[in-house]
């Protein structure tokens, strides 16, 4: 391979570029980024960056030395428009083309928006530019903020806004935020954090429309209520950026379809991060974006899938002064048990269990015990796998994992 093009100057894109060099690729490395910014880290955008505690320097994922060392050709502020049928030419929006032997797709996802005309005061929070404009508005005086969507981005944004002294309401269409991720018991615990932070949480009711002419002035709910608002933050998820691949031969369905090794239908095209649907699942997790590139690049350079990747799902969230950490593969019906600390004290470790096997863990401000369980889960994950079947896992098959868990945990 003489040229590899990384499309997406994102966390996953940068990690892929690093891996290419680390794994001995010394050819031409082109990195195409839609944004005008060098790769930056998104998680702080809704937290320390929004509150002004962290500045843009602290978001940078790379420094000058490393950038030089990578020896890549960076193209910023230009969007990829297409990939030819053989995956050998990347077309750019400005008409240029890049001839290439290998492609790493790392175009990420975009914030989902509400239908209707654009109104001033309505924000999403996904990119640095999004965060800059929201931050500017929040720093210019007290506002009535309505956050639509109680997921992690919504909750963190609400927490940051409340911390800055704004009056904040969170609207969640489901009966509780984070239900699919955490299950009813722990979703209820996390919902309680909003209350503690002085934020009103409205659940079980959807948004009918945004009110206002030029600037937003309220959020109308389907039950007829209107919440007055100067600022609205829409946090209703993200859609993978696959539009530019519509004319390619790649299979697209809620992301770029890949095998377990991040390899697409074309062996010289791999996909990583939020845009990649790896082995049937798309995980918008920071740890997926950082764990997939090593394997994807190895397979790209090998010309076929020689290694697979299935990182243990892990995510964290900082809100209202609490740090929530979650790891594992929870399924509906798992039992939840607090095994250390207490919910009332705001510091605890809870395990999700199925047939006596730990499937996942959630901790609030309990980092070390959480790490212990996360490592155990990772180890269990690495064992010759229990097949990923739609059927319920039978106890006999799951047993090795259970034993792994019962082993004394070495520190």
């Amino acid at each position, binding site marked *: 391979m003489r040229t590899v093009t990384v499309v997406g100057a994102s966390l996953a894109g940068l*990690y892929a570029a*690093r891996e290419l060099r680390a794994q001995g690729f010394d050819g031409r490395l082109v990195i195409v980024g839609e944004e005008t910014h060098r790769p930056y*880290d998104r*998680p*702080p955008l809704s937290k*320390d960056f929004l509150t002004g505690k962290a500045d843009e320097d602290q978001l940078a*994922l790379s*420094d000058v030395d*490393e950038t030089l060392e990578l020896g890549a050709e960076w193209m910023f502020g230009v969007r990829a428009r297409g990939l030819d049928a053989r995956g050998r030419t990347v077309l750019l929006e400005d008409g240029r083309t890049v001839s290439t032997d290998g492609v790493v797709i790392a175009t990420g996802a975009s914030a989902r928006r509400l239908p209707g005309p654009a109104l001033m005061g309505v924000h999403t929070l996904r990119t640095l530019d999004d965060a800059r404009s929201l931050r500017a508005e929040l720093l210019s005086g007290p506002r009535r903020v309505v956050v639509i969507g109680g997921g992690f981005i919504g909750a963190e944004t609400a927490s940051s806004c409340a911390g800055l002294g704004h009056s904040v309401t969170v609207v969640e269409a489901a009966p509780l935020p984070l239900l699919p991720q955490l299950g009813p018991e722990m979703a209820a615990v996390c919902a309680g954090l909003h209350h503690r932070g002085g934020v009103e949480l409205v659940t079980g009711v959807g948004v009918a429309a945004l009110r206002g002419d030029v600037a937003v002035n309220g959020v109308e709910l389907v039950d007829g209520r209107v919440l007055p608002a100067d600022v609205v933050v829409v946090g209703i998820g993200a859609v993978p950026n696959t539009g530019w691949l519509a004319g390619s031969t790649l299979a697209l369905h809620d992301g770029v379809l890949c095998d377990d090794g991040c390899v697409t239908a074309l062996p010289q095209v791999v996909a990583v991060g939020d845009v990649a649907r790896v082995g049937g699942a798309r995980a918008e997790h*920071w*740890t997926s974006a*950082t764990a997939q590139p090593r394997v994807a690049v190895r397979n790209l350079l090998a010309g076929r899938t020689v290694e697979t990747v299935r990182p243990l799902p892990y995510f*964290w969230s*900082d809100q209202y002064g609490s740090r929530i*950490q979650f790891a594992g593969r929870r399924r509906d019906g798992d039992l939840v048990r607090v095994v250390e600390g207490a919910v009332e004290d705001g510091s605890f470790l809870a395990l999700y269990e199925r047939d006596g096997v730990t499937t996942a863990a959630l901790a609030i401000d309990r*980092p*070390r015990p*959480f*790490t*212990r369980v996360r*490592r155990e889960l990772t180890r269990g994950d690495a064992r010759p796998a229990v097949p990923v079947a739609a059927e319920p896992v039978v106890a006999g098959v799951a047993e090795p994992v259970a034993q792994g868990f019962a082993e004394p945990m070495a*520190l």
Partner: protein
Amino acid sequence: MIPVCRLEDLPTGGSVRIDTAPPIAVFNADGELYAIDDTCTHQDASLSEGWLEGCLVECPLHEASFDLRTGQPTCLPARRPVRTHRVTVEDGVVHVHPAAEEGTAA
């Protein structure tokens, strides 16, 4: 020189965080005592709550790992070292000698 705790209160595998500015974490790694800046150089996490393995401590948030002897990160996402500080035991009490603001190890 800052008194930290009695030696017996810092058993093997244990760690304590002292509220200096910036905070310092003291570890007992298999009988050797080490002190480093407590805050991970990647983002905001306390290394005293990290996972200790040999001379390495793994950050509890995104698994960057630091060498307690040098303060150097051994893997991403951290790219900058933490400062190291000298540790002594006097009359059974663990003391930390914070490094000067500039530079690294004392």
